[in-house]
């Protein structure tokens, strides 16, 4: 029981956010998986083929509270879950999130200016939001809410397991000035536990007579799962269907600057099969106790008077829809040379009316022909800045990639966030994609050893500022 309680507290206290990883995203088109970050990204191989399960696994986890924040060791050596510490570590609004994606299958083919792909992913998206006040109320009672509203409008969540199947298309400009892409996805939901987004609840304790103003609207818990009765068909696709679209584009502003923009997971799932829910009927009242003069049994009267205000419907089975959390991505690159670039990215995530921002900036370096690495400084919501890194490494046709947004401080007692992505792809025909873009050196070394800044490039010529005529050395 204590473990369960602790885990619940940890999960609730650990304000976490699970979003697309920054570091691996900075690999951009180097790995196929970033086609999901921006459909305009596509690897420079003729074929990209998945190795089921191994091709891509990513988990994101981010929290505000560490083990040591929640647990303190007493003088007698006993580890104690410390609610006071937990409360002091929480912000006004918090959430738990967990996102996982496993590539089941994908095949990508690129030729000339176009690339198409087919893909199947297994995904879990879970977000639970709760205000700090809720924990405060549970731990300290309502004494801190006397004369102040305990607002639970932000309380709610959505956890889904679904499968996405789709087709992607990417177009590359012949002059390599831009690219764009989209992915059309069919979603098949297997599990959902959620509350409606328009849930509201509040409790205000009158400072004088302690009367309670209680308002509850749209308090519905919906649990949908079809694991227990799925047949062969629903093993592939369930009757809880949805659709989503990913859109993206990149622009080469000039030879040094590239901008990528995307919005992904614009879609929904309609849940109608296997729903088991409960609903608390809307109620709005001020509870002032009982009429003392006419109450023979005070406690019974109190219990009756409050319980009569709440009516729970146990058999809620109304179909409903949930939105996927949409993720935006704006990435800008400054190409230092053909192998190095500075990259900055901004990633907003839109979930249940909240916008969660994460930022990253780093350098990407290609090492030889087969290795590309990046290191970045990342700022995740409710986290301090940390270092992240990612790499993509070709060993023949095998591409190994991985990344994390946290490479410093892996002390698990103080760990507040982690994520990683890892996978192995099969890339065929890397050399058959014509590279249309070349990069100008930023400096040109004259015969005399003097370095001159390069202004631009015209075909095979470098453009440099006009130089003064120099006298021959031997004169």
């Amino acid at each position, binding site marked *: 029981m204590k473990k369960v309680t602790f885990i619940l507290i940890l999960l609730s206290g650990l304000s976490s956010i699970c979003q697309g990883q920054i570091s691996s995203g900075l690999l951009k088109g180097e790995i196929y998986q970033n086609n999901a970050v921006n459909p305009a990204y596509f690897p420079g191989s003729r074929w990209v083929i998945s190795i089921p399960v191994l091709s891509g696994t990513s988990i994101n986890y981010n929290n505000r509270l560490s083990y040591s924040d929640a647990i303190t060791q007493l003088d007698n050596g006993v580890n104690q879950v410390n609610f006071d510490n937990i409360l002091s570590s929480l912000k006004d609004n918090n959430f738990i999130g967990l996102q996982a994606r496993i590539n089941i299958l994908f095949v990508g083919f690129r030729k000339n200016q176009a690339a198409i792909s087919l893909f199947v992913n297994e995904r879990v998206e879970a977000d639970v939001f709760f205000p700090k006040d809720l924990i405060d109320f549970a731990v300290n009672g309502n004494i801190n809410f006397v004369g102040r509203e305990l607002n639970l409008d932000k309380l709610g969540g959505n956890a889904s397991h679904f499968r996405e199947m789709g087709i992607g298309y990417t177009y590359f400009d012949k002059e390599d000035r831009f690219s764009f892409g989209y992915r059309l996805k069919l979603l098949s939901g297997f599990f959902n536990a959620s509350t409606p987004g328009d849930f509201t609840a509040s409790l205000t304790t009158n400072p*004088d007579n302690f009367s309670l103003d209680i308002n509850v609207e749209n308090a519905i818990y919906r649990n949908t799962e079809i694991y227990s009765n799925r047949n062969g068909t629903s093993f592939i696709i369930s009757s809880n269907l949805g659709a989503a679209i990913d859109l993206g584009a990149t622009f080469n502003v000039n030879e040094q600057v590239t901008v990528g923009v995307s919005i992904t997971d614009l879609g929904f799932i309609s849940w109608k099969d296997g729903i088991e829910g409960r609903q608390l009927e809307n109620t709005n009242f001020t509870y002032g106790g009982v009429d003392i*003069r006419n109450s023979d049994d005070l406690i019974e009267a109190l219990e009756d008077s409050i319980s009569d205000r709440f009516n729970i419907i146990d058999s809620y089975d109304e179909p409903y829809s949930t939105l996927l959390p949409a993720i935006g991505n704006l990435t800008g690159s400054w190409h230092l040379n053909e192998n190095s670039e500075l990259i900055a990215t901004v990633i907003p995530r839109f979930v249940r009316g909240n916008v969660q921002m994460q930022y990253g900036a780093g350098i990407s370096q290609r090492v030889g022909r087969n290795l590309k690495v990046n290191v970045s400084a990342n700022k995740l919501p409710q986290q301090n800045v940390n270092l992240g890194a990612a790499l993509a490494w070709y060993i023949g046709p095998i591409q190994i990639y991985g990344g994390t947004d946290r490479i410093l401080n892996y002390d698990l007692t103080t760990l507040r966030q982690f994520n990683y992505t890892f996978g192995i792809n099969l890339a065929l025909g890397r050399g058959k994609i014509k590279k249309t873009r070349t990069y100008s050196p930023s400096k040109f070394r004259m015969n005399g050893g003097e370095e001159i800044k390069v202004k631009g490039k015209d075909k095979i010529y470098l453009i440099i500022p006009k130089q003064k005529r120099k006298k021959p050395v031997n004169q």
Partner: protein
Amino acid sequence: MYWSKIRIIVGIIVFCFACNVNELEFNDLELQNLKPVVVAPLGTFEYTMQELIEELNDDLVEIGTDADQVIILTFKDSSSFSLSDEFIAIDDVNGEGSVFPEQSVAPIGTTVRIPFEEEFIYVYEPTGDERLDSVFYDNGTVIFNVESTCSCSFEYSFEIENTRNVNTDAPLAFSGILNFDGSNNPSDEQVRSLVDHKTILNDDANNFRSVFRGEIIIEPGQILKAEDELKFEFLYKDQDFQKIFGLFGQDSITIDGGIIEIDLFEDALSSGIVFEGPEIQIDFENRFGIPIGILTDSIYAKNNSGDSVFLSGTVPDNPQIIAFSRDDIFEPALSTVTINSANSNIRDLFNLAPNQLTFPVTGISNFNNTDNFNYVTDSSDIKANATFTLPLRFRLEDFTQKVDFDIEGTYDNEEIDSLFMQIVTRNNLPFIAEMEISINDSTGAELFKIPESVVIEIPIFNAVGDIVSDSETISKFPLGPAGIEALKTGSDLSINLVLNSPSNNVNDFFSILSTNGIRVEVGVGASGEIEL
């Protein structure tokens, strides 16, 4: 190239640096005890005068308001007095008389007739000293008997000149011929109904006149002796009167008004309340043709303790005249006697917090003038409709109300180690209130009393005395260990309200409007340590 490799190596080292996984300990975790403080409303009790009085469910109480919305309680009762005999009673009236021929006659060959006529005066006498003018009968009879001692026949008539048929004005008369059968003296008895008859009495002396006349018929062979006589007697029997006129003099009567049960005081209001203007109004409908002086000094109030106070004062102690109708004897004369604090000690009756009001009313007929011309009819009565009005404008002097509610067995939480009560009082009664809270055991013995009492201030009045703003008092009382212990073993939580008027001037009274009341809201706060 080298630089790049170095960066990779450094990254891997940092990535794996310092996990401290061994320091994560999830076994034998202990959860910190919670120490929540929870506050919640316990409830309210409210004394709104309108609701309080309506709750009495007393059919005898009518609740109203005057133009200023001051609550007025009204109790009503009625009684009647219809015993005409108390004023005038007439028993059977009788009379007798004799006629003596005073001669001897013994005729031979021819019949001798000796006429006689004699007038008789009788008294139509009531049981008292009333002087009758006339009586009209609904029912009754007159029985007339006549006989003679002579051995001869006679013819007679007997007329009562004062008793006449109301339609024909013919006097009531008896007549007949009585023949001597040779052996028995002749006699006769006749009966006349008094229906549709009246008797007009003469000479202010209740006299009435009759004439007995006739002839003695002595046939040959019969003898009339000098000592013979003709005797008669009559009797007014079973008289019921439709109307009686006359001078009835003075008589005492009692109108028994019964008892009014006043639950208001028994259930809601205890002693300590001084009403400014209680009033009793008695509306009389007098169908007797008699003015009556009413005395109300027999009215009294009695409380639960058996204490009683009789009404006294200028009005109760002195007869109040109830008029009578002179023009139409079948129409009632209306009179009102008003008893208030200006003419009586009525405040004292209500200050007693009575649960019973008993109002017998005594009266004296023709109290002020015995020369009044009186009458009674067969429908004469006096109806007394008493209305007790009690405007709720009063003073309170240590007026006490107590509310107990059962708490036995309700507090069994060992985890609560401190408790406090927060009491909000909103008062728009024009009184200062002091509230004491205690916890008692099943025998009523006090286990714990909150040391400080709550003082509830008076509302804010404007220049004309109207309440413009309620007073609100918020008080917080920690119960402490003794209080908590008392809660565990106690049986009742008792709230005692003591109300007083805000002025010491006994002549200052305060109005209670229908909306006035006092509201007490009780909140509780508890804290304790909860082991998870």
